[in-house]
Protein backbone atom coordinates (compact mmCIF):
# COMPACT_ATOMS: atom_id res chain seq x y z
CA UNK A 1 0.00 0.00 0.00
CA UNK A 2 1.50 3.34 -0.91
CA UNK A 3 2.32 5.58 2.04
CA UNK A 4 0.12 8.49 1.08
CA UNK A 5 -2.90 6.20 1.02
CA UNK A 6 -2.50 5.30 4.66
CA UNK A 7 -1.98 8.91 5.60
CA UNK A 8 -5.06 10.09 3.79
CA UNK A 9 -7.10 7.49 5.60
CA UNK A 10 -5.80 8.52 8.97
CA UNK A 11 -6.66 12.13 8.36
CA UNK A 12 -10.16 11.18 7.26
CA UNK A 13 -10.68 9.31 10.49
CA UNK A 14 -9.37 12.17 12.55
CA UNK A 15 -11.82 14.51 10.89
CA UNK A 16 -14.66 12.15 11.59
CA UNK A 17 -13.79 11.97 15.24
CA UNK A 18 -13.38 15.70 15.33
CA UNK A 19 -16.77 16.08 13.74
CA UNK A 20 -18.58 14.02 16.35
CA UNK A 21 -16.69 15.68 19.16
CA UNK A 22 -17.48 19.08 17.82
CA UNK A 23 -21.18 18.34 17.62
CA UNK A 24 -21.25 17.20 21.22
CA UNK A 25 -19.30 20.24 22.22
CA UNK A 26 -21.65 22.58 20.41
CA UNK A 27 -24.58 20.96 22.20
CA UNK A 28 -22.89 21.35 25.56
CA UNK A 29 -22.06 24.92 24.77
CA UNK A 30 -25.68 25.52 23.91
CA UNK A 31 -26.70 24.31 27.34
CA UNK A 32 -24.08 26.51 28.96
CA UNK A 33 -25.23 29.47 27.09
CA UNK A 34 -27.80 31.43 28.98
CA UNK A 35 -27.04 29.80 32.27
CA UNK A 36 -23.61 31.29 32.38
CA UNK A 37 -22.88 31.86 35.99
CA UNK A 38 -20.07 33.95 37.29
CA UNK A 39 -18.58 30.85 38.89
CA UNK A 40 -18.43 28.96 35.65
CA UNK A 41 -16.64 31.72 33.83
CA UNK A 42 -14.18 31.89 36.66
CA UNK A 43 -13.60 28.16 36.60
CA UNK A 44 -13.00 28.22 32.87
CA UNK A 45 -10.66 31.15 33.05
CA UNK A 46 -8.73 29.38 35.76
CA UNK A 47 -8.42 26.21 33.72
CA UNK A 48 -7.35 28.22 30.74
CA UNK A 49 -4.70 29.96 32.78
CA UNK A 50 -3.44 26.66 34.11
CA UNK A 51 -3.12 25.33 30.57
CA UNK A 52 -1.35 28.48 29.50
CA UNK A 53 1.12 28.06 32.35
CA UNK A 54 1.74 24.48 31.45
CA UNK A 55 2.42 25.49 27.90
CA UNK A 56 4.81 28.20 29.02
CA UNK A 57 6.58 25.78 31.29
CA UNK A 58 7.21 23.32 28.49
CA UNK A 59 8.28 26.05 26.10
CA UNK A 60 10.44 28.18 28.35
CA UNK A 61 11.11 25.90 31.28
CA UNK A 62 14.82 26.62 31.02
CA UNK A 63 14.11 30.16 32.21
CA UNK A 64 13.33 28.59 35.57
CA UNK A 65 16.01 25.95 35.33
CA UNK A 66 13.77 23.23 33.90
CA UNK A 67 14.98 22.67 30.38
CA UNK A 68 12.35 20.59 28.62
CA UNK A 69 12.44 21.51 24.98
CA UNK A 70 15.75 21.67 23.14
CA UNK A 71 16.77 25.34 23.09
CA UNK A 72 16.27 25.64 19.34
CA UNK A 73 12.55 25.09 19.67
CA UNK A 74 12.26 27.16 22.83
CA UNK A 75 13.73 30.11 20.98
CA UNK A 76 11.49 29.48 18.03
CA UNK A 77 8.41 29.76 20.22
CA UNK A 78 9.72 32.56 22.43
CA UNK A 79 8.26 35.45 20.39
CA UNK A 80 4.72 34.18 20.98
CA UNK A 81 5.25 33.72 24.69
CA UNK A 82 6.53 37.20 25.51
CA UNK A 83 3.29 38.81 26.69
CA UNK A 84 2.80 36.01 29.22
CA UNK A 85 6.29 35.72 30.65
CA UNK A 86 5.94 38.18 33.53
CA UNK A 87 2.59 36.99 34.87
CA UNK A 88 3.60 33.41 34.34
CA UNK A 89 6.77 33.64 36.39
CA UNK A 90 5.07 35.61 39.13
CA UNK A 91 2.14 33.24 39.51
CA UNK A 92 4.32 30.16 39.31
CA UNK A 93 6.50 31.22 42.17
CA UNK A 94 3.49 32.25 44.17
CA UNK A 95 1.27 29.29 43.56
CA UNK A 96 3.14 26.07 44.17
CA UNK A 97 5.99 23.81 43.33
CA UNK A 98 6.68 24.07 39.63
CA UNK A 99 6.86 20.31 39.30
CA UNK A 100 3.19 20.02 40.33
CA UNK A 101 2.25 21.52 37.05
CA UNK A 102 4.30 19.06 35.07
CA UNK A 103 3.29 15.74 36.48
Amino acid at each position, binding site marked *: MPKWFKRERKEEKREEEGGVKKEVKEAVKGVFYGMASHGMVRY*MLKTRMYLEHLFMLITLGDMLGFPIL*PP*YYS*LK*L*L*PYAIPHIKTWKRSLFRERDVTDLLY
Partner: protein
Amino acid sequence: MPKSLKEFFDASPELRIVVYAGKGGLGKTTASAATAYWFSKRGKKPLCFSTDPQASLSDIFERDIFGKGVIEVAPSLYVVEIDADKRIAEFQEEVRAKIRELYKIEKIPDEIDEYIRTAAAEPAMHESATYDAMAELLAKGEYDIYIFDMPPFGHGVRMISMAQILDAWIDKMEETRRKAAEYEEAVARLKGLSAKTEDEVLVELREIRRKLDFFRESLTNPKTCAFFMVIIPEKMAILDTERALEMFDKLGIKLSGIIVNQIYPPSLLENPNISTFLKNRIEMQQKYMKVIWEKFEEYIRALVPMFDREPKGLDMIAKVAEHMFERPWEVDVI
Protein backbone atom coordinates in the same frame (compact mmCIF):
# COMPACT_ATOMS: atom_id res chain seq x y z
CA MET B 1 30.78 -14.22 4.00
CA PRO B 2 28.38 -11.67 5.53
CA LYS B 3 26.41 -9.33 3.33
CA SER B 4 28.70 -6.73 1.78
CA LEU B 5 27.99 -3.02 1.73
CA LYS B 6 27.12 -3.16 -1.95
CA GLU B 7 24.83 -6.12 -1.45
CA PHE B 8 23.21 -4.29 1.43
CA PHE B 9 22.50 -1.18 -0.64
CA ASP B 10 21.37 -3.23 -3.62
CA ALA B 11 18.89 -4.99 -1.36
CA SER B 12 17.58 -1.70 0.08
CA PRO B 13 15.98 0.22 -2.78
CA GLU B 14 13.94 2.43 -0.44
CA LEU B 15 16.94 3.61 1.49
CA ARG B 16 17.07 7.39 1.88
CA ILE B 17 19.40 7.96 4.83
CA VAL B 18 22.82 6.58 5.61
CA VAL B 19 24.44 7.42 8.93
CA TYR B 20 28.05 6.72 9.83
CA ALA B 21 28.62 6.80 13.54
CA GLY B 22 31.51 5.89 15.75
CA LYS B 23 34.36 7.24 17.78
CA GLY B 24 36.49 10.17 16.73
CA GLY B 25 39.08 9.81 14.01
CA LEU B 26 38.33 6.30 12.82
CA GLY B 27 36.94 7.16 9.39
CA LYS B 28 33.31 8.40 9.49
CA THR B 29 33.98 11.34 7.21
CA THR B 30 36.07 9.21 4.88
CA ALA B 31 33.34 6.57 4.66
CA SER B 32 30.64 9.22 4.16
CA ALA B 33 32.51 10.88 1.32
CA ALA B 34 33.22 7.54 -0.36
CA THR B 35 29.58 6.48 -0.04
CA ALA B 36 28.31 9.74 -1.53
CA TYR B 37 30.83 9.39 -4.32
CA TRP B 38 29.74 5.83 -5.05
CA PHE B 39 26.05 6.74 -5.21
CA SER B 40 26.78 9.67 -7.52
CA LYS B 41 28.63 7.31 -9.87
CA ARG B 42 25.61 5.02 -9.91
CA GLY B 43 23.36 7.72 -11.27
CA LYS B 44 21.89 8.78 -7.94
CA LYS B 45 21.79 12.23 -6.46
CA PRO B 46 23.36 12.00 -2.99
CA LEU B 47 23.80 14.74 -0.42
CA CYS B 48 26.61 14.42 2.06
CA PHE B 49 25.88 16.39 5.22
CA SER B 50 28.15 17.41 8.07
CA THR B 51 28.21 19.89 10.93
CA ASP B 52 31.79 19.29 11.93
CA PRO B 53 33.22 22.67 12.98
CA GLN B 54 36.60 21.37 11.81
CA ALA B 55 35.28 21.56 8.26
CA SER B 56 36.29 17.97 7.59
CA LEU B 57 34.29 17.72 4.36
CA SER B 58 36.06 20.80 3.01
CA ASP B 59 39.24 19.02 3.98
CA ILE B 60 38.50 15.70 2.31
CA PHE B 61 37.01 17.18 -0.87
CA GLU B 62 39.81 19.73 -0.94
CA ARG B 63 37.42 22.58 -1.43
CA ASP B 64 36.19 25.32 0.86
CA ILE B 65 32.51 24.56 1.28
CA PHE B 66 32.14 25.36 5.00
CA GLY B 67 29.03 27.42 5.67
CA LYS B 68 28.46 27.95 1.97
CA GLY B 69 25.28 25.95 1.48
CA VAL B 70 24.89 22.92 -0.78
CA ILE B 71 27.74 22.61 -3.30
CA GLU B 72 28.08 20.17 -6.20
CA VAL B 73 31.69 19.09 -5.75
CA ALA B 74 31.63 16.59 -8.62
CA PRO B 75 28.94 15.71 -11.16
CA SER B 76 25.80 14.86 -9.21
CA LEU B 77 27.70 14.75 -5.93
CA TYR B 78 26.30 17.27 -3.47
CA VAL B 79 27.88 18.26 -0.21
CA VAL B 80 26.83 20.60 2.58
CA GLU B 81 28.84 21.55 5.58
CA ILE B 82 26.80 23.51 8.07
CA ASP B 83 28.50 26.29 9.99
CA ALA B 84 26.48 25.82 13.16
CA ASP B 85 27.73 29.02 14.83
CA LYS B 86 26.73 31.10 11.85
CA ARG B 87 23.41 29.38 11.58
CA ILE B 88 22.64 29.99 15.24
CA ALA B 89 23.61 33.66 14.96
CA GLU B 90 21.24 34.01 12.00
CA PHE B 91 18.53 32.22 13.90
CA GLN B 92 18.90 34.58 16.88
CA GLU B 93 18.41 37.48 14.50
CA GLU B 94 15.31 35.85 13.03
CA VAL B 95 13.85 35.47 16.52
CA ARG B 96 14.55 39.11 17.30
CA ALA B 97 13.03 40.23 14.01
CA LYS B 98 9.94 38.15 14.71
CA ILE B 99 9.54 39.82 18.11
CA ARG B 100 9.90 43.30 16.62
CA GLU B 101 7.36 42.47 13.97
CA LEU B 102 4.84 40.88 16.35
CA TYR B 103 4.86 43.66 18.91
CA LYS B 104 5.83 46.58 16.73
CA ILE B 105 8.77 47.49 18.91
CA GLU B 106 12.28 48.57 18.03
CA LYS B 107 14.18 47.51 21.10
CA ILE B 108 13.98 43.96 22.44
CA PRO B 109 13.37 44.05 26.21
CA ASP B 110 16.58 43.37 28.11
CA GLU B 111 15.30 40.30 29.90
CA ILE B 112 14.22 38.74 26.61
CA ASP B 113 17.42 39.58 24.82
CA GLU B 114 19.39 38.11 27.67
CA TYR B 115 17.42 34.90 27.31
CA ILE B 116 18.00 34.79 23.56
CA ARG B 117 21.73 35.17 24.13
CA THR B 118 22.08 32.55 26.85
CA ALA B 119 19.90 30.01 25.06
CA ALA B 120 22.06 30.35 21.96
CA ALA B 121 25.24 29.79 23.92
CA GLU B 122 24.17 26.42 25.31
CA PRO B 123 25.86 23.34 23.87
CA ALA B 124 22.42 21.77 23.45
CA MET B 125 21.63 24.61 21.08
CA HIS B 126 24.27 23.42 18.66
CA GLU B 127 22.89 19.94 18.72
CA SER B 128 19.24 20.86 18.32
CA ALA B 129 19.98 23.39 15.59
CA THR B 130 21.93 20.70 13.76
CA TYR B 131 19.11 18.18 13.96
CA ASP B 132 16.67 20.78 12.80
CA ALA B 133 18.87 21.52 9.81
CA MET B 134 18.94 17.82 8.99
CA ALA B 135 15.21 17.43 9.44
CA GLU B 136 14.59 20.39 7.19
CA LEU B 137 16.82 19.12 4.40
CA LEU B 138 15.17 15.75 4.63
CA ALA B 139 11.66 17.18 4.60
CA LYS B 140 12.46 19.09 1.41
CA GLY B 141 13.36 15.82 -0.26
CA GLU B 142 15.49 17.20 -3.07
CA TYR B 143 18.02 14.38 -3.00
CA ASP B 144 17.85 10.63 -3.55
CA ILE B 145 19.98 9.73 -0.60
CA TYR B 146 21.21 11.62 2.46
CA ILE B 147 24.52 10.67 4.00
CA PHE B 148 24.96 12.05 7.49
CA ASP B 149 28.50 12.30 8.72
CA MET B 150 27.89 12.37 12.45
CA PRO B 151 30.04 13.90 15.13
CA PRO B 152 31.78 11.30 17.32
CA PHE B 153 30.29 9.36 20.28
CA GLY B 154 26.95 7.91 19.48
CA HIS B 155 25.26 11.12 18.42
CA GLY B 156 23.40 9.29 15.74
CA VAL B 157 21.66 7.38 18.48
CA ARG B 158 21.02 10.52 20.50
CA MET B 159 19.43 12.07 17.48
CA ILE B 160 16.80 9.37 17.36
CA SER B 161 16.01 9.44 21.05
CA MET B 162 15.77 13.21 20.92
CA ALA B 163 13.40 13.11 17.98
CA GLN B 164 11.25 10.65 19.90
CA ILE B 165 11.16 12.67 23.11
CA LEU B 166 10.63 15.93 21.32
CA ASP B 167 7.77 14.50 19.37
CA ALA B 168 6.03 13.50 22.60
CA TRP B 169 6.50 16.99 24.05
CA ILE B 170 5.26 18.74 20.97
CA ASP B 171 2.21 16.51 21.17
CA LYS B 172 1.59 17.62 24.72
CA MET B 173 2.10 21.25 23.84
CA GLU B 174 -0.27 21.08 20.95
CA GLU B 175 -2.84 19.50 23.22
CA THR B 176 -2.52 22.12 25.99
CA ARG B 177 -2.60 24.86 23.43
CA ARG B 178 -5.70 23.49 21.77
CA LYS B 179 -7.48 22.97 25.06
CA ALA B 180 -6.58 26.47 26.21
CA ALA B 181 -8.02 27.83 22.99
CA GLU B 182 -11.20 25.83 23.54
CA TYR B 183 -11.65 27.25 27.01
CA GLU B 184 -10.97 30.70 25.77
CA GLU B 185 -13.59 30.25 23.11
CA ALA B 186 -16.08 28.95 25.64
CA VAL B 187 -15.43 31.87 27.95
CA ALA B 188 -15.83 34.29 25.08
CA ARG B 189 -19.14 32.71 24.17
CA LEU B 190 -20.39 32.73 27.72
CA LYS B 191 -19.59 36.38 27.85
CA GLY B 192 -21.24 36.88 24.49
CA LEU B 193 -18.01 37.74 22.67
CA SER B 194 -16.88 36.25 19.37
CA ALA B 195 -14.18 33.61 19.37
CA LYS B 196 -10.55 34.37 18.48
CA THR B 197 -8.93 33.38 15.22
CA GLU B 198 -6.58 30.42 14.95
CA ASP B 199 -3.58 30.52 17.23
CA GLU B 200 -0.30 31.27 15.47
CA VAL B 201 1.55 29.12 17.95
CA LEU B 202 -0.50 26.12 16.96
CA VAL B 203 0.46 26.69 13.36
CA GLU B 204 4.12 26.83 14.34
CA LEU B 205 3.84 23.74 16.53
CA ARG B 206 2.20 21.74 13.78
CA GLU B 207 4.96 22.77 11.41
CA ILE B 208 7.64 21.63 13.85
CA ARG B 209 5.79 18.40 14.43
CA ARG B 210 5.36 17.64 10.76
CA LYS B 211 9.09 18.03 10.24
CA LEU B 212 10.01 15.95 13.29
CA ASP B 213 7.51 13.23 12.54
CA PHE B 214 8.98 12.78 9.12
CA PHE B 215 12.49 12.87 10.51
CA ARG B 216 11.78 10.30 13.20
CA GLU B 217 9.82 8.07 10.88
CA SER B 218 12.57 8.12 8.31
CA LEU B 219 15.26 7.48 10.91
CA THR B 220 13.55 4.61 12.69
CA ASN B 221 12.34 2.76 9.63
CA PRO B 222 15.02 0.20 8.73
CA LYS B 223 13.86 0.32 5.13
CA THR B 224 14.64 4.01 4.78
CA CYS B 225 17.57 4.47 7.13
CA ALA B 226 20.80 2.58 7.67
CA PHE B 227 23.18 3.06 10.59
CA PHE B 228 26.76 1.98 10.17
CA MET B 229 29.54 1.96 12.66
CA VAL B 230 33.10 2.61 11.62
CA ILE B 231 35.67 0.84 13.75
CA ILE B 232 39.33 -0.13 13.56
CA PRO B 233 40.82 -3.46 14.62
CA GLU B 234 41.74 -2.60 18.18
CA LYS B 235 40.72 -3.85 21.58
CA MET B 236 38.57 -0.80 22.36
CA ALA B 237 36.51 -1.33 19.23
CA ILE B 238 35.12 -4.59 20.57
CA LEU B 239 33.76 -3.01 23.72
CA ASP B 240 32.48 0.02 21.82
CA THR B 241 30.63 -2.15 19.36
CA GLU B 242 29.03 -4.20 22.11
CA ARG B 243 27.87 -1.00 23.78
CA ALA B 244 26.54 0.43 20.56
CA LEU B 245 24.61 -2.75 19.84
CA GLU B 246 23.05 -2.53 23.29
CA MET B 247 22.07 1.10 22.77
CA PHE B 248 20.55 0.39 19.40
CA ASP B 249 18.63 -2.47 20.92
CA LYS B 250 17.18 -0.22 23.61
CA LEU B 251 15.95 2.18 20.97
CA GLY B 252 14.47 -0.63 18.94
CA ILE B 253 16.76 0.02 16.02
CA LYS B 254 18.91 -2.40 14.15
CA LEU B 255 22.53 -1.64 13.41
CA SER B 256 22.89 -2.04 9.66
CA GLY B 257 26.52 -2.89 9.67
CA ILE B 258 30.09 -2.33 10.63
CA ILE B 259 32.93 -1.03 8.47
CA VAL B 260 36.35 -2.04 9.69
CA ASN B 261 38.76 0.65 8.60
CA GLN B 262 42.50 1.24 8.65
CA ILE B 263 43.54 -2.38 8.40
CA TYR B 264 47.22 -2.90 7.66
CA PRO B 265 47.56 -5.31 4.74
CA PRO B 266 48.90 -8.55 6.24
CA SER B 267 50.80 -9.18 3.01
CA LEU B 268 53.27 -6.60 4.31
CA LEU B 269 54.50 -9.34 6.64
CA GLU B 270 55.97 -11.15 3.62
CA ASN B 271 58.54 -8.42 3.28
CA PRO B 272 61.64 -9.69 5.11
CA ASN B 273 62.75 -6.13 5.80
CA ILE B 274 59.60 -5.13 7.63
CA SER B 275 60.22 -3.09 10.77
CA THR B 276 59.48 -4.68 14.12
CA PHE B 277 57.14 -1.82 14.85
CA LEU B 278 54.97 -2.46 11.81
CA LYS B 279 55.18 -6.20 12.26
CA ASN B 280 53.89 -5.96 15.82
CA ARG B 281 51.11 -3.64 14.81
CA ILE B 282 49.95 -5.92 12.03
CA GLU B 283 49.99 -8.93 14.33
CA MET B 284 48.03 -7.03 16.96
CA GLN B 285 45.46 -5.97 14.38
CA GLN B 286 45.11 -9.52 13.12
CA LYS B 287 44.46 -10.74 16.63
CA TYR B 288 41.63 -8.27 17.18
CA MET B 289 40.36 -8.71 13.64
CA LYS B 290 39.79 -12.36 14.51
CA VAL B 291 37.79 -11.48 17.63
CA ILE B 292 35.76 -8.87 15.74
CA TRP B 293 34.96 -11.39 13.07
CA GLU B 294 33.91 -14.04 15.56
CA LYS B 295 31.70 -11.69 17.55
CA PHE B 296 30.17 -9.48 14.88
CA GLU B 297 30.46 -11.41 11.63
CA GLU B 298 26.82 -10.89 10.63
CA TYR B 299 27.30 -7.10 10.80
CA ILE B 300 30.55 -6.71 8.91
CA ARG B 301 29.95 -5.03 5.55
CA ALA B 302 33.41 -4.05 4.38
CA LEU B 303 37.07 -4.08 5.29
CA VAL B 304 39.10 -1.05 4.28
CA PRO B 305 42.90 -1.05 4.23
CA MET B 306 45.18 1.50 5.79
CA PHE B 307 46.44 3.67 2.96
CA ASP B 308 49.96 5.01 2.84
CA ARG B 309 48.57 8.55 3.09
CA GLU B 310 45.39 10.30 4.14
CA PRO B 311 42.64 9.69 1.62
CA LYS B 312 41.88 13.23 0.43
CA GLY B 313 40.70 14.52 -2.92
CA LEU B 314 38.37 12.89 -5.42
CA ASP B 315 40.92 10.37 -6.72
CA MET B 316 41.60 9.01 -3.26
CA ILE B 317 37.90 9.07 -2.36
CA ALA B 318 37.27 7.01 -5.48
CA LYS B 319 39.88 4.57 -4.27
CA VAL B 320 38.25 4.25 -0.85
CA ALA B 321 34.89 3.73 -2.55
CA GLU B 322 36.41 1.02 -4.73
CA HIS B 323 37.61 -0.80 -1.63
CA MET B 324 34.40 -0.32 0.33
CA PHE B 325 32.02 -1.36 -2.42
CA GLU B 326 33.85 -3.45 -4.99
CA ARG B 327 36.44 -5.41 -3.00
CA PRO B 328 34.99 -5.44 0.52
CA TRP B 329 36.91 -8.51 1.70
CA GLU B 330 40.38 -7.63 0.45
CA VAL B 331 42.76 -5.37 2.25
CA ASP B 332 45.68 -5.23 -0.16
CA VAL B 333 45.76 -1.64 -1.34
CA ILE B 334 44.95 -1.17 -5.01
